[in-house]
């Protein structure tokens, strides 16, 4: 799969991102204007990076889960739980690092629980993660006792709204996480193992892969990513909102992963492209907002985009297109 670098840049996801940004620019001429103010960059594009970070972070974990032919519906609820943990601990007077580490640990524990259900009890991923999706928000409300816990801890707020070299902290965290996880799966054999499980779990196990262990780790990664996203979202609004933090973000994350070309049937995945997918979604959101359309159109545009992607990815269209351009790559075998 060694291809030219230029050809790699011209993949549909990046082209789509460029197209969405250009449409935004046509609708709102100041879209690309970036200013430097108070030691940080400002502008709509920076806003896309900043606002897209939570979904991008979720998409990193979700990509790995979907590559194993699973899905993690609980990430939004885990975000709420972890945001609640971080906020209540800071308010209770614990030092910020302790609160953040505790929140990350809770996210990891939630992920391990999902992994336990999927890998050890052999429960279908949708159902297994549905348990925490339903119960998670209740747990988060239990932690915050039904209130929106607000805090003023500068270190915690920095995670959500601070800046690093002028770039928003959230985007920097997402980028670092993406690089780390991509290196982990692409420079070691883990990525290959994940793909093997996604294609055929029984065969992968027979080939000597500890599929149970690996599945647990993949869901743990997803929970960990959700914890980071939850802390960022809580820090951004300086409060933990158990009801609305991360609401429906699991669907956005799945959408981002699908846009990134990862197959929902497992076996084929790309973490950087999933992050690009998250940015495409956010660029559309921001575009609809800055160009003055009512935000209700957001959902319809999203639906239209899913349908378009499904058409492009479907085997039916693939065969038709393959019929017309035989000279390009051979149709991917099933």
């Amino acid at each position, binding site marked *: 799969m060694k291809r030219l670098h230029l050809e790699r840049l011209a993949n549909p996801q990046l082209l789509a991102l460029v197209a969405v940004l250009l449409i935004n620019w046509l609708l709102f001429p100041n879209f690309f204007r970036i200013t430097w103010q108070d030691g940080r960059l400002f502008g709509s594009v920076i806003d896309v990076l900043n606002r897209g970070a939570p979904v991008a972070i979720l998409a990193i974990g979700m990509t790995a889960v979907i590559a194993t032919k699973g*899905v993690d519906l609980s990430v939004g609820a885990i975000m709420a739980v972890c945001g609640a943990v971080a906020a209540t601990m800071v308010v209770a007077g614990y030092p910020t690092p302790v609160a953040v580490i505790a929140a990350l640990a809770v996210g990891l524990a939630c992920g391990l629980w999902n992994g336990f259900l999927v890998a050890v009890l052999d429960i279908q991923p949708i159902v297994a993660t549905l348990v925490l999706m339903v119960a998670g928000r209740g747990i988060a409300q239990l932690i915050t006792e039904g209130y929106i816990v607000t805090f003023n801890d500068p270190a915690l707020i920095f995670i959500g709204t601070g800046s690093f070299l002028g770039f928003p902290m959230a985007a920097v965290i997402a980028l670092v996480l993406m690089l780390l996880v991509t290196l982990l799966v692409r420079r070691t054999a883990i990525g290959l193992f994940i793909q093997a499980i996604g294609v055929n779990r029984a065969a992968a196990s027979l080939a000597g892969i500890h599929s149970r262990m690996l599945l647990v780790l993949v869901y743990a990664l997803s929970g960990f990513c959700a914890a980071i996203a939850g802390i960022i979202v809580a820090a951004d609004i300086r409060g933990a909102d158990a009801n609305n933090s991360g609401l429906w973000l699991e669907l956005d994350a799945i959408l981002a992963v699908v846009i990134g070309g990862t197959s929902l049937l497992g076996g084929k995945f790309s973490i950087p492209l999933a992050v690009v997918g998250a940015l495409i979604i956010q660029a559309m959101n921001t575009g609809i907002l800055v160009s003055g359309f009512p935000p209700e159109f957001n959902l*319809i545009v999203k*639906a239209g985009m899913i349908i378009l992607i*499904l058409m492009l990815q479907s085997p039916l269209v693939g065969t038709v297109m393959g019929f017309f351009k035989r000279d390009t790559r051979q149709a991917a075998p099933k």
Partner: protein
Amino acid sequence: MKRSLRPLAATAVIFLIAYALSVAQFPGMLSTRVLGNFLTDNAFLGIAAVGMTFVIISGGIDLSVGAVIGFTGVLVAVLISWLGFHPLAAFAIALGVAALFGAAMGVTIHYLQVPSFIVTLAGMFLARGGASVITQDSVPINHDFYSAISDLIIRLPGGGRLSFIGLLMVAVFLFGALLAHRTRFGSYVYALGGNPVSASLMGVPVARTTIQIYMLSSTLAALAGIVFSLYTSAGYPLAAVGVELDAISAVVIGGTLLTGGYGFVLGTFVGVMLLGLVQTYIIFDGTLSSWWTKIVIGVLLFLFIVLQRVIFAASAPREEQPEKV
């Protein structure tokens, strides 16, 4: 007892035990009034859950249910209150629109060969977005027909009331049970959920059945939306957010396997009643906060999933797992 009925029996027994425990604590819960309200308050959820049962038995999932309920409510309210349609005409239009919507999802799922999960996710965005584009506000419905239907109640001894929508839900469940177990369509649905490849080899019309399943689910969701609008006398674009999760929970608790091919419509009824019981108990208790509902439903889901695994592992010895290395 037939082995395949065990999960259904387990759910029913657990419901009875839970109800008995609740009654032991709050004797007031054993009244026809509470039982009547069980039916009325969960009518829209129950109707939507019948459609979801069929989808899940066929091996799919329908995430658009809640959004279709919201959309139907808004559509009906706008047709009646703004455009002066008669409610029955508005209902017919809403059911027709939903049937087309479901058919479109079924066509996409079958012909583009994409997981139902992602198609119905798009459907959810589309329906919810469509409802929000029509109106952002809650549209009240003041029509004689609505008050006439609200007055249609059967009084039971002990102060209980069987409302029209509660009875409608029971009727839909009976219809669903007949459809699942006594018709050709029903056996097609089970065959499809068991194994789509062998189903199509056996001559099951896979395309037609898939489309019909999603049509059924969306139409019943629209009926649930109509019931919801009768219940609240209004249409609101953000109504019934997350009802699809409650419906899926009810179906799973009712003993239907999410892998497809196995399940009961009447089990879903018990599932819906169990969810209703949890809510009623928390209201009766008064000191428990509303978020306990979610936690308890999550715990119930977990228990039933594990229970299903245990029952299936015990009753149908599966082939050796290759992973126990």
